Each structure stands twice: as structure tokens, then as C-alpha cells.
């Protein structure tokens, strides 16, 4: 019965087609989810750093410059030394010095925090570009690339379908980022030092009266913020793009300022927010990569819009550290 066989074939074909569509969709979803983690890494480092700064009472608008310095220094050291971890360490050191500058301006001098932050960011973006131009030869406008970290293969875990590639097949810094979140959550909520940071950010005068060195705590938090942010920046150049480009953070530092509000200054919520914002980024990049025409700018705009909405609700609940933006002086 040729007729019936023809129908059967067609049904079979349709099922095959549906199956292959399903496989393609699944592969797309898996790659977007895996990419989500990669896109979230700089946001996680930067925002956890920002949480330390803001919890101690300092809004660190130097963050964009710190991230750029991390990206530039990380790339340059990795390129010249040939070791990515040396690059990450140098980036952290550069970020820490930027944090030290920010601390000197806002804590010792008591300068207005946003003005000091913008100054730090301008220095950082200028200097990152400057040392990059001096540090590598440009061949027809394109800098030489570095080899990124190898992706880890964890026995058994990496082989799990779907979950394996999404969670267990990443460069090591992804796991460092996730661990940083857990450690910071532990510091904030389970240690004496975390309590001290929060006390300094909420009521520095009371903390001072209780014998806490407000200045030292804020210095430590800002230096830590700078180092973490710069590590996030070094991920962008070393692991993601494999080279540095001026201004390559593209406002990711500001996204961290947004995220820390969105995550209510708490590391675990920040992780959630970073994955959400990273996911938006991964989705728009993947859709573009497979040729879907989307107004991707509207995706990229979302974090900022969402944050203003979050700020409106936060301001009602007054969750921000009370002493944020206020310089502390003993004798006033």
C-alpha cells in the first residue's frame, strides 16, 4: 500500500523534524544558560565589592574605572608574563590601589563621594587606555590575544546532560566568583567583622563610640571593593575577549551600582540579580548570534530601568545603609 506508507513516512518526517527542532532548542537553551554564568562573572565580582563599600557607608562610583584598570592591567601582565593568574593578581593589586585612592579621598579627606568616584573613574578609564597603548604593539588596530583559562572538566559532573555544560564546564574564575559570594555572605552575617562593617555603614558615630575604628574599616572595605572589581575586569579581558579594548567594560561597573540596589546589599540576592542581568545579556547575544533581529539595545537598557524601579521601592522601605554618602568626621 504505497499510499499508506507515504503518509507514515510523512508522519515520521514530521516527528524527526520536531525532534531535531527540540534538540536545537535545547542546545540553544543550554548554551544561553552556560553563557549566563560567564556574563555574570564580572557583575558578581564588581557588585560584591560594591556591597562591601556601600555597607561600610561609601558609594564607590570609581567602580567603572577600577574595572577598566583591572581589565587593562590583567591583560597586559597576562600577555607579557604568559600566566593568566599573574594577570588576575596584578589586576587585583591595581584595583586595590584604586580603592586606596578612593578611600583617601572619601574617608581621610571626606570629599563628596560621587565626585571622588567620578574622578577615580576618569583616572581609571584614561590610565587603562594609556598603559594599554604603551604596553602592546597594535597590528592593524587589533591587539594580540592571550590564551584564556582552560575550561575545567570535573569527573562525572561535567558529563551530566544539560546540567554538566551549564554548571560544571567553566573556567576556574567562575567558581572563584561563586565562592566569593558565599564567603562574603558568611562575612556579612556570621562574623564579627561583618557586624562591624554594617555598624559603620549604619551609624558611624555609635560605632566610633563603641571603639570601632571607622576609618580603618572603610579603608579595608574600599580596598577590597577595588580588588574584587578589578578581578571582575580582568575576566572581561583575559577570559572573555582575550584582549583589552578601551572602554570595554561598557558600563558594567554602573550595572554593579544598579545591582547592589537591586540585590538589597545582600550577597546572595546579588548573585541572583547578577545571574538575571547576565542572563539577559547572554540571551540577546545568543539571539543575535543565530541571526534573530532584535532591538538588543532594549535588552541592555533593562538593568538600568529595573534598577530605577527597584530604587523607588527601596526608598520606601529605606533599606540602604543609613550613613551612605555621608563622610564621617569625629569633631563635627
Amino acid at each position, binding site marked *: 500500500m504505497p499510499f499508506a506508507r507515504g503518509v507514515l513516512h510523512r508522519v515520521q518526517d514530521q516527528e524527526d523534524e520536531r525532534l531535531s527542532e527540540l534538540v536545537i532548542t535545547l542546545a540553544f537553551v543550554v548554551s544561553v544558560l552556560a553563557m549566563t554564568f560567564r556574563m555574570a562573572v564580572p557583575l558578581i565580582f564588581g557588585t560584591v565589592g560594591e556591597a562591601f563599600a556601600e555597607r561600610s557607608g561609601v558609594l564607590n562610583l570609581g567602580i567603572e574605572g577600577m574595572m577598566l584598570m583591572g581589565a587593562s592591567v590583567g591583560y597586559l601582565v597576562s600577555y607579557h608574563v604568559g600566566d593568566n593568574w599573574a594577570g588576575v593578581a596584578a589586576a587585583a593589586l591595581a584595583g586595590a590601589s584604586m580603592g586606596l585612592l578612593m578611600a583617601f*579621598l572619601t574617608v581621610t579627606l571626606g570629599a563628596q563621594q560621587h565626585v571622588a568616584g567620578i574622578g577615580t573613574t576618569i583616572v581609571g578609564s584614561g590610565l587603562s587606555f594609556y598603559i594599554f597603548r604603551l604596553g602592546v604593539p597594535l597590528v592593524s588596530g587589533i591587539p594580540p590575544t592571550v590564551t584564556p583559562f582552560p575550561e575545567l572538566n570535573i569527573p562525572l559532573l561535567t558529563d551530566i546532560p544539560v546540567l554538566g555544560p551549564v554548571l560544571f564546564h567553566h573556567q576556574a574564575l567562575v567558581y572563584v566568583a561563586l565562592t566569593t559570594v558565599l564567603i562574603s555572605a558568611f562575612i556579612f552575617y556570621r562574623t564579627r567583622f561583618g557586624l562591624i562593617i554594617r555598624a559603620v555603614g549604619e551609624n558611624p558615630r555609635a560605632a566610633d563610640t563603641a571603639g570601632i575604628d571607622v576609618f580603618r574599616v572603610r579603608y579595608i572595605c574600599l580596598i577590597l571593593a577595588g580588588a574584587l572589581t578589578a578581578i571582575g575586569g580582568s575576566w572581561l579581558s583575559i577570559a572573555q575577549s582575550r584582549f583589552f579594548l578601551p572602554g570595554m567594560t561598557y558600563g558594567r561597573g554602573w550595572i554593579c551600582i*544598579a545591582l547592589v540596589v537591586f540585590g538589597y546589599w545582600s550577597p546572595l540576592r546579588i548573585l541572583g540579580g547578577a545571574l538575571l542581568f547576565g542572563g539577559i545579556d547572554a540571551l540577546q547575544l545568543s539571539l543575535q548570534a543565530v541571526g534573530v533581529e532584535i532591538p538588543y539595545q*532594549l535588552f*541592555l537598557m533593562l538593568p538600568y*530601568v529595573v534598577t530605577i524601579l527597584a530604587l523607588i521601592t527601596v526608598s520606601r522601605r529605606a533599606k540602604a545603609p543609613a550613613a551612605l554618602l555621608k563622610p564621617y568626621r569625629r569633631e563635627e
Partner: protein
Amino acid sequence: MDLPFKVEKRPPAPLWLRVTAPIISVVAALAVCSAFILYAGVNPLYGYYHLFAGALGSTLGLSETFVRFCPLLFCGVAVALAFTAKFWNIGAEGQLYAGGLAATFFGVSFIGAPSALIIPLMFVSGFLGGALWAAIPALLKTKLKVDDVVTTLMGNWIIWYFTSYLLTGPWKNPVTVWPESPAIAPTAEFPILVPGTRIHLGIPVALFCAFIYFLIYARSSWGYELKAIGANPKASNLMGINVTRGLVTVAILSGGIAGLAGVSELGGIHHHMKTDLSFGFGYTGIVIAMLGGLHPIGVTAAAFLMSVISTGSQVMYRVTGVPYPISQVIEGMTLVCLLLGVFFTEYRIRRTRD
């Protein structure tokens, strides 16, 4: 920290100190940055000579300095005006784009209209575009107590991505592959004031804005009210000043003036709306406002100095090979040194132990 000295507030600094502090800060910033120039293998004095000679020593250099002066003065005045009332407008950059977009709409669609109609229309619409973009954070601040630093900063990126969306989508120039709008009408292009240069209509308009700011700042009771709001909003409210109205008005003016920077770059230089209409002019505006001590004359001088550094570093790059991003480093370092300078005008350090 127990230190062998104590920081105490000094009586209000005399005028000469308030004037010299920014100048010393600039010199200090140049001194710090000479280390970076040295690192590039160039004698800093040789480098700086070419920087200043390049920006001031030739007709071309000087005219380009004035071309850069235009957006920087607009942004400096915009930020200074806002900061006077402590409306922390970090969003001049975004307001510049908002103004540019609004002016593009008229500049592109009113083909055939005479210059006398279309150019004023671009200025008015650009002002309103920037004003609207600044009014939103001001309303959020006054009505809902949402922090203006973060909202104005976020606004920069929202409007920038919106610009990028328009220029790659609905407003895309069908002729080129770049993200830019079609060219504005030939009649919408600003007249060139000095033949053979790029000095355009926007520059006198910027100076006029600085003059208006001078009248507000130094000659009007409203300027006094703004300073009072900045110094102590609660007390101002008790004195019968309408703080909400003051802040929203100042935001509208500030955003509008920043919007004019966008209009001028569009009509005077680029003639297409672009995603790189501004090279961080809005952020440089913050440096300028602070360096000028928020005073109209100081701001004008600071804007000129920043234009010199920006233009001159291009010349220094061509002559000596010192990478031009040094201008941004000098700019940021100036702000850093200034914060140190301001500290010493407000406080003094006294030894407590021998």
C-alpha cells in the same frame, strides 16, 4: 586611628586661597601626570610644551580648542548650576544625548525650512529634551526621595542605548552602515563664524548660557535661594523657600543646558546624530564645575583649560607619541588633586603631639 596631628575646620577661606587652590591643583595634576609621560619615554616638559603650544599656538589649534570648549562649557555650566542647589546631576552626558535626539527629529524632518526657523527650533527642542530627561530624576528625588546620583547615572545609559536603538533601527541612515541618523537639512547646519575654521554658532550660545548662569548665580535672589537650598534644604523650607520647585526648576535648566551641548555638536560639527556624539563631555562637566568652584567665571575658565588639555594632547600625541588618553588621566587627576586642595581650604592640620 590615633595620629600625632588633628584635623580641624578652619574659618572660611579667604578669596585668594579659594582662587589659587584650583590653580595649584591643576599644576599638581600636571606634575603627577609627568610621571606617566616619562614612562612613555618622553621628557614631560617637552611633552607639555607641545600640548600647550598645539592647543594655543596656532590658528588651527586655537580654533579647535574653541570647538571643544563649546560642549564642555555647556556641560560645565549645566553641572555647576545643578550642584549649586545640590541636585547631584551626574547625568549631563545623558541629557546631552536627549537634547541631540530631540534636535535631530526637527533637523532631519524639516527639510526645506529656512535656517531662521529650523535652528531656533533645534535649540528649543534640544533644551526641552535635556530638560525632560533631567526632570525625571528631580521629580523622583523630590516626590519619592529616590537618590539622584544613581538615577541620573542610570539615565545616561538608558538614553544612550535608546539612541543606539534609534540609530540602528527606526532612525537609521539608509545610505551608510554606521549607526547614525540621516543628515540634518543643509539649512539646519550651524553657520561657521570664522571662515576656514570649525568655529560655529554653538560657541556664542554656550558663552551666553554661562552669562545667564552668572546673572542667576551672582545677581539674582533666585540664585541666593538655590545656594540656600544647597546649604540646608530643611532650613530653606522653613524660611519659606519652595525646595521642591527650586530643585525641579534647577534640574530643568541644568538638563536643558546639557541638551544644548548635544544640539551644538549635532548642528555645528557632526550634522548626523551619532552614538558617539559625546566623548564623555557630561562627565568632564563634573570636573569643570568642581574645578571652577561652581562659580560662573571659574567654570568658564575651567572649561577652557579642559579644552586646551583635550585638544593639546592630540597634538602632543602626533609630535611626541605620548598616547592621547593622557588627557583623560590629567582631567581625572585634576579632580583628585582639587579634592585635596579643597580639603586644605576648609580644614587645617595641627600637631597634637611633639
